[in-house]
Structures are given as C-alpha cells and as structure tokens.
C-alpha cells in the first residue's frame, strides 16, 4: 500500500461549491415537495388552519436534513 499514490486532485473549490449548492437544493426541495404534498392533503381533507401544509413542511425539512447528513456527512 505504500506505493499507492492515487493521483487525486482533492483541493477543488468547484466541488466544494457544488456540495454547498447541493445541500441548499436538498433543503428547498424537501420543504417545497413535502409542503406541496401537505397543501394538497389540506385541500383534499379540508384540514382546519392548514395544518397539513405545516406538517408537510416540517417533515420535508427533517427529511432534507437527514438526507444531507447521510449522503454528504462524514
């Protein structure tokens, strides 16, 4: 294993920026998609005070953070 000099160009600011935007994308997509599902459930079941949207957004946020930690965390 001593001679295994893998030619990786690690310090790449482009991939860091990509990771950052990926995380933001996960967050926005999570909140948006699940908020949208919650809103549709709202309209279908006529939930009082639009609780469906709230719970959908919370679930979406939790799922997005979980995805970020799992795929991009250490």
């Amino acid at each position, binding site marked *: 294993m001593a001679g295994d000099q893998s030619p990786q160009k690690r310090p790449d600011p482009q991939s860091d920026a990509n*990771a950052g935007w990926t*995380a933001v994308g996960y*967050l926005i997509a999570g*909140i948006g998609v699940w908020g949208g599902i919650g809103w549709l459930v709202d309209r279908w079941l006529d939930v009082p005070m*639009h609780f469906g949207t*709230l719970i959908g957004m919370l679930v979406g946020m939790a799922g997005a953070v979980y995805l970020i930690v799992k795929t991009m965390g250490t």
Partner: protein
Amino acid sequence: MSLQLAPLAADVPWPPSVEEAFFPPGVAGSLWVTKFSIMVWLAVAVIIVFFLVTQRNPKLVPTKAQWLSESIYSFVRNGITKEVIGHEGPRFAPYLTTLFVFISFINLFAIVPGFQISPSSHIAFPTVLALISFLIYWYQGAKKHGFWSYIKTSIVLPAPWWVQPILLPIELAQILLIRPVTLAVRLFANLFAGHLILLVFTLGGFVLMGSGNIGLAAVGVISWGMSIVMTLFEAGVALLQAYVFVLLSASYVQSSLADEH
C-alpha cells in the same frame, strides 16, 4: 427646516405597540410561512452549508474557513463542555455547538437591515430550544441513575431532616419547571427588550424630528445616535445570550451526570 421634516413623522406608528412591531403578516397570507420561518430556514441552510463545505476536505494546515469553523467548535468544546461537564463533555459538543451557532445567528437577525427582528423575540422559538435542552438533561439523568433515583438524587440535598420539607418542593420545582422556563424566558426577554429599545430610539427620533421644534429636532438626532449605540450593544447581547444559554444547558447536563452525593 421643521416643515421639511414633518412628513417624516407622518405615518410612524407611535408609541410602538407589541402587535404591530412583533407580528408582521404572513407571506402571501399564509399562516405558516412568515418572515420568521424564512429567517429560521435561512439560518439552518447557512449553518449546514458552512460547516459542510469547510469540513469536507480538512487539511492539516487549515484554510481560513476551516480554521473559523474549527475555532467555533473548539470554543464550545474546550471552553464549555470540557470545563463544565468534564470527562464526558465532548459527547455533547456537537449539540451545544449547533445550539450556540444557531442561537447567535437567530439573535443577530435583530440588527441585520431588512429583517431587523429576531425569531427569538417570539416566545415560541426559545421555548422549543429550552424544551430540547430540558429533555436532554432529563434523559441523561434518567439513563445514568434510573428515573426515580435521579429525581431522588437531585432533590435530596445534604441538610438536616427538619429542613428537608422546605427544600424538597423548591428543588423539585427547580429541576422540573424553573430551569427550562428561565432558559426560554431569559433568551426571549433579552431579545424582546432589545428590539423594543431599538424601536423606541429609532421611531422616537422620527417623531422628534418631525415635531417642528428645533430643540426637539436636536434631541431627535441624539436619539438616532443612541439607536446606533444600542445596535452595537444588541450585537453583544445576542452573542452573550447564546453563550449563556449553552453554558447553562451544559451546566444542567453536568448536574444530572454528577455522581451521588
């Protein structure tokens, strides 16, 4: 000169009321997407992206951003968890660092132009944060000592038997009620008062300038100077309250991890 300044005071809400100043309407009439939820989402996104990007390819000789995130983490880990909790401290360092950075960020929104109000000036956000700390120190105490044994060790202090009936209810209220409530209300009240002070000085400056009296207009300028001083003071209070919240949470965890008397 006073005639030109009179329009300044035309539609300034004076005195600032709690309803107008602290409860802006929801975005697009929605009940749940308000200015405060957007601020919280923004804070979460910035914190996640910052720590993710700086710790992705950590080098032995750190870059500037990596140094910054490592300094913040080591400030909480070495300065708070190792000092206060002791040996088992670093186990709680991730939660306490996140809490510290999140609360600082949220509090600093109070002086950022554009937002100029902090979500922690609504009682809901500090309540949830205090509730999470409360659950953590109860869970740690129950895990270490067993549920009823933990309550017994926390309440019964070394004191003569005839003083115990006075001490037991006080200690029970302390661990059950006083600690989480004061954690939440301390953060809430500091940010609420800070926002109110800034409102009074800024809006008061407008009212004084538009009053038509040259003496009062001079006082209006002083009022605006005071609002600048108070903005800097508010920045200090924001960071200090985050630090105290985290320090007290660590201290409560330490008290539930402490061995039997």
